[in-house]
């Protein structure tokens, strides 16, 4: 078993044409990994590459040591689960329906497995509620439960903390940490949440389809990388063992009343 669950080697990835130009990176297992990058940098494309939803124009993508080109779509559930930020909203599906739509390797997640995943996240009382009527935070937890029920070793979550209030955001972060610790799975998230990145084991910063930096949070969450990543002045302070981020931006606050 390789130490890395996902490896990209000189990968060129995109749709009609490559968005990601030449990317080499690896994601350790088990880990909570966060991909940071400005809008349009190729974060979502990177996640989609792993589920073969984006086209690989050149180079290689390995999943669990296996060349992705040799994994047929029908076998993907054995390797990976994907949770979008949202699913089509005009549905009336119960929470249980949503979780049971996940694959369990070759078969489908059973009601029993679905309930266990919901219970693990402490949301089993939502099982028979209509998914559409839940709050954004509850919906995110259900989609995480769906990923968890799939028993895949790699869970891809697109922006799992976006649009959440601070409390819900930290609940999601601590749940993701707990999943990685308990289940020894790798959770890969993409988004703009630097707090989530700080609580990750591994952070990947990509910009304009190219790797800017990759490493532990302390390697990435610093003045140099963040300022370059977002093209604004960002300062990171370590005070009393805690890390604070100050975003200067280009706004001049001195004239403000």
């Amino acid at each position, binding site marked *: 078993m390789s130490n890395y669950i996902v490896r990209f080697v000189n990968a060129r990835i995109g749709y009609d044409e490559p968005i990601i130009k030449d990317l080499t990176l690896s994601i350790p297992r088990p880990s909570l990994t966060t991909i940071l990058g400005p809008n349009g940098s190729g974060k979502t494309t990177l996640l*989609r590459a792993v*589920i*073969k*939803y984006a086209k690989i124009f050149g180079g290689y993508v390995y999943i669990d040591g296996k060349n992705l080109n040799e994994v047929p*779509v*029908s*076998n*993907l*559930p054995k390797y*990976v*689960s*994907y*949770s*979008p930020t949202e*699913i*089509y909203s*005009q*549905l*009336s*599906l*119960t929470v249980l*329906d*949503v979780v049971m*739509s*996940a*694959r369990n390797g070759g078969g*489908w997640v059973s009601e029993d497995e679905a309930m266990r995943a919901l219970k693990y996240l402490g949301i089993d009382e939502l099982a028979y509620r*209509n998914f559409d009527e839940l709050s954004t935070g509850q919906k995110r937890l259900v989609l995480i439960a769906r990923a968890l029920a*799939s028993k895949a070793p790699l869970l*891809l979550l*697109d922006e799992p903390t976006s649009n959440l209030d601070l409390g819900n955001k930290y609940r999601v972060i601590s749940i993701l940490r707990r999943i990685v610790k308990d289940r020894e799975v790798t959770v890969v998230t993409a988004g703009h949440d630097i707090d989530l990145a700080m609580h990750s084991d591994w952070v990947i910063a990509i910009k304009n389809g190219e790797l800017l930096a990759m490493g532990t949070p302390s390697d990435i969450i610093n003045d140099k990388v963040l300022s370059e990543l977002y093209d604004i002045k960002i300062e990171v302070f370590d005070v009393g063992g805690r890390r604070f981020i100050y975003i200067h931006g280009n706004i001049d606050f001195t004239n403000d009343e």
Partner: protein
Amino acid sequence: MGEVIVPLGMVFDPAQTYRVIILDIRLPEVIACIIVGANLAVSGAVMQSVFRNPLAEPYITGTASGALLGALIGLFINVVLRLGSLSSMIILPILSFVGAMFSIAVVVMFGRGGWLSLVLAGIAVSIMLSSAVMILDTYLLTILPTLPAVVYLLFGTVSGVNWSEDLVMLCVSLPVIAYLLSSSREINLIMMSDEVAQASGVNPGQTRNVLITLTGLLTAVSVSFTGIIGFVGLVTPHITRLLISSSDNSKVMPLSIISGSTIMLYANIISKVLVPGVVMPITAITSLFGVPILLILLRGGRNE
């Protein structure tokens, strides 16, 4: 074909008239109602799911118009080549299927910008194909003023459907519907999100194409023999979802089949009793009742 009241006790009367009316005229119509209602309803449920579009159905996506033009071309070829009624039962559905696939391909190609653009592309293509239908139909009626099939197809009616046509419809519809019912979990995945489907082992592009082709087949075989029957495909899945408060296709599809057939059977009865002695085209009845139901559904959905 006017209205004849058959006394209940006379169905199995040895006197031929009533038996012919029941067994060779009315019964094939009833069977056609059941098959066409099932076909349209299940097509609507599948299209609404795979396009993630509450208005998608064979009529609004232009599939039915394409199927009708194809069927009329088939009729035209059949007439010009002086082929018999047996060949018409093969040629019509095949060309109707080609027409359905052509129109849905055009609509999907131009309607990529979201659910409204799919509907607009469908309406545009429908209008264009309806013009072609009018031209072809006027010509057909000029050269063959007594060809009843032309009139039937244009009006959307089960009147005049015979046993062999029922058999053709059944042979196509049964396996297709069975396959669609067995794919309900895959359809649910595509209804949620393409990426979710893909990661769950269901290639959304390929699967969507297969499913749309199958709804085209169901639409074509229905339109070939009964013309365009509006709103059953649109309204039935919505009513079903509302009744069971679920969009889960493993429940919606089988129940839509039952409701679609039931709606068609009632529409068939109403089409005969609305004006005594006159049989109305069934599509007039389904649209007359379907549209208000749709409007009520739209309002109800907003109030929730």
